[in-house]
């Protein structure tokens, strides 16, 4: 296990440098004149230009600039947005909102997918099962750009059940509808995996033993079978965090939630290069860590899995 962790960490370091390098190169390579971009329309004097060049190491080579960026990233200095705010401060404001949104979405998705997944596995081939297969297929195919605006229109504006947009402090009530939208992306795969895994486990010997001992059907299904069926589902929830974060960009944009995705979308539209790179880098690091955690969790949950 220890050797596996070390090897995975080394792999992660490689991926980290590769990924940040790609992002950095794409944003900053052959940028025309970053100083003029910073100054906007105002004319800029020679001495200002010189000072800025030195401050941002613009006279040094591309790899040196990448080195400064990595150094800042690792010491917690994410640089300054073109608006003059520290990117680190903006993240402190934005992350809790997105984290809350993602957490609510994960809980909603887990509750729905496990309940419906187990139910359709028990009644396999029944009406509910066939219906849920169709519904999950539709959910799998619906892009978030379709779900988010339509849900906002139907449940937020037309029916008025939920607030259609969030305010600065983003309360639980305001985050509920966007969280349901986000949950829609991950509910379908989670439900299908729950269903398959419960169907497999229902045939297992230990289920027959438990029934033979005279345990009630409810106890066999919700305690014995479910515990063994949840392993793939839990890891899937971890993997889905990646798609949740991507979905958050669109969802926060639609519902006006001041989280990471909202800031990122705005940074893209205002061509705020440093801000984009800062947020994307953090997302990439988070994504890598989640993947590692999921792999380790998998081994911890299922004693049969051994990494060398």
């Amino acid at each position, binding site marked *: 296990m220890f050797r596996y962790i070390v090897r995975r960490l080394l792999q992660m370091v490689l991926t980290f440098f590769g990924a940040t390098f*790609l992002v950095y190169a794409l944003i900053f390579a052959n940028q025309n004149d970053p100083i003029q971009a910073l100054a906007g329309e105002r004319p800029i004097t020679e001495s200002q230009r010189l000072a800025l060049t030195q401050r941002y190491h613009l006279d040094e080579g591309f790899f040196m600039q990448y080195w400064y960026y990595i150094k800042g990233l690792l010491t917690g200095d994410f640089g300054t947005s073109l608006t003059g705010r520290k990117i680190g401060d903006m993240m402190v404001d934005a992350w809790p909102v997105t984290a809350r949104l993602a957490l609510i979405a994960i809980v909603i998705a887990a509750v729905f997918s496990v309940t419906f997944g187990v139910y359709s596995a028990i009644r396999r081939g029944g009406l509910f099962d066939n219906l849920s297969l169709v519904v999950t297929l539709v959910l*799998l195919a619906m892009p978030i*750009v379709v779900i988010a*605006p339509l849900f906002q229109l139907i449940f937020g504006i037309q029916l008025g059940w939920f607030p259609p947009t969030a305010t600065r402090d983003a309360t639980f009530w305001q985050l509920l509808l966007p969280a349901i939208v986000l949950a829609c992306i991950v509910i379908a795969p989670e439900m299908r*995996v729950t269903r*398959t895994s419960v169907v497999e486990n229902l045939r297992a010997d230990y289920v027959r033993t438990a029934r033979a001992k005279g345990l009630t059907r409810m106890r066999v299904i919700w305690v014995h079978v479910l515990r063994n069926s949840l392993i793939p589902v839990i890891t899937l929830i971890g993997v889905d965090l*990646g798609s949740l974060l991507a979905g958050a960009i669109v969802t926060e944009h639609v519902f006006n939630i001041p989280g990471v995705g909202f800031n990122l979308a705005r940074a893209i539209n205002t061509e705020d290069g440093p801000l984009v790179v800062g947020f994307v880098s953090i997302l990439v690091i988070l994504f890598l860590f989640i993947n590692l955690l999921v792999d380790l969790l998998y081994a911890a949950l299922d004693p049969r899995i051994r990494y060398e």
Partner: protein
Amino acid sequence: MSDLNTVTAAEAPGGQPNVPHGPVKKDKPRSLAADAWSELRRRKIFWIAIVLVAFILVMSFWPSLFTSADPRACSLSNQYKGPSGSALFGYDFQGCDVYAKVVNGAFNSIRVGVFSTLVAGIIGLIFGMASGYFGGWVDAVLSRFIDIMLGVPFLLAGIVLSRRLSSDPASDGVFAVTLTLGLLSWTSGARVMRSAVISAKQQDYVAAARMLGAKPSRLILQHILPNSIASYIVLLTLLLGINIASEATLSFLGVGLKGDAISWGIMIAEGTQFARTQPWPLVWPAIFLGVTVLAFIMLGDAVRDAFDPKLR
């Protein structure tokens, strides 16, 4: 945004309940394709998908069959007028005919989807084949490279790359988006191709052909490729649907198609802003986009089930 990994991972283990019906006639041995076809013919979902896809294709190549209105002839005096006989879906903020715009938007969706899938298909095929056939350091380098690509969430990479490629403000962004999606979406396919090639390579008929003195090029083209490409092509059908959705997402965020180009993603973005006043300019492009993506994913889903002997 749907991600190819989750879609395949979610569905591969899920057995469809309505699989084989009736005894299969055993008159003569049938090929995998013939077998799959007889399986497909019975699936209702397959025919629904085929009809929808055909409808969308007709609409994208001959929009004049559906509407004679010019989608770019907008007049502010028509702003937010509701549906009527001349404009079935009403008018949007700019006073454009929503029906005409939706119908004409199909072309860009299909165009970007097909060409980006082609680009991704070719890259994935070459990388997957090379990785699986040569193994060794080629495989190690390519697999690490794919790991790095997958380390960046798809949408983030798409935003950054599309922005970089479409720096020319005069372009409509079609080329940039197509290239972006093509360059980013080949990874899952390459992995599938790699494992298919590895398992095909170890088959006895390949060993026999090699012993008979077949050149590597003949081995690859005549023996390994035909036996490993089925699942790859099915995957590309799914990818087509996903890439259409990705194009709309990028356009929605303002880094996809732009300027004069008509895109369902842009229409949804504009419609969202004014949904309070008039919901139809938002609802119709959303429905068309949803149905289009659904049709391609249903098609890929059905074909994959038919081609996978293990599910039967």
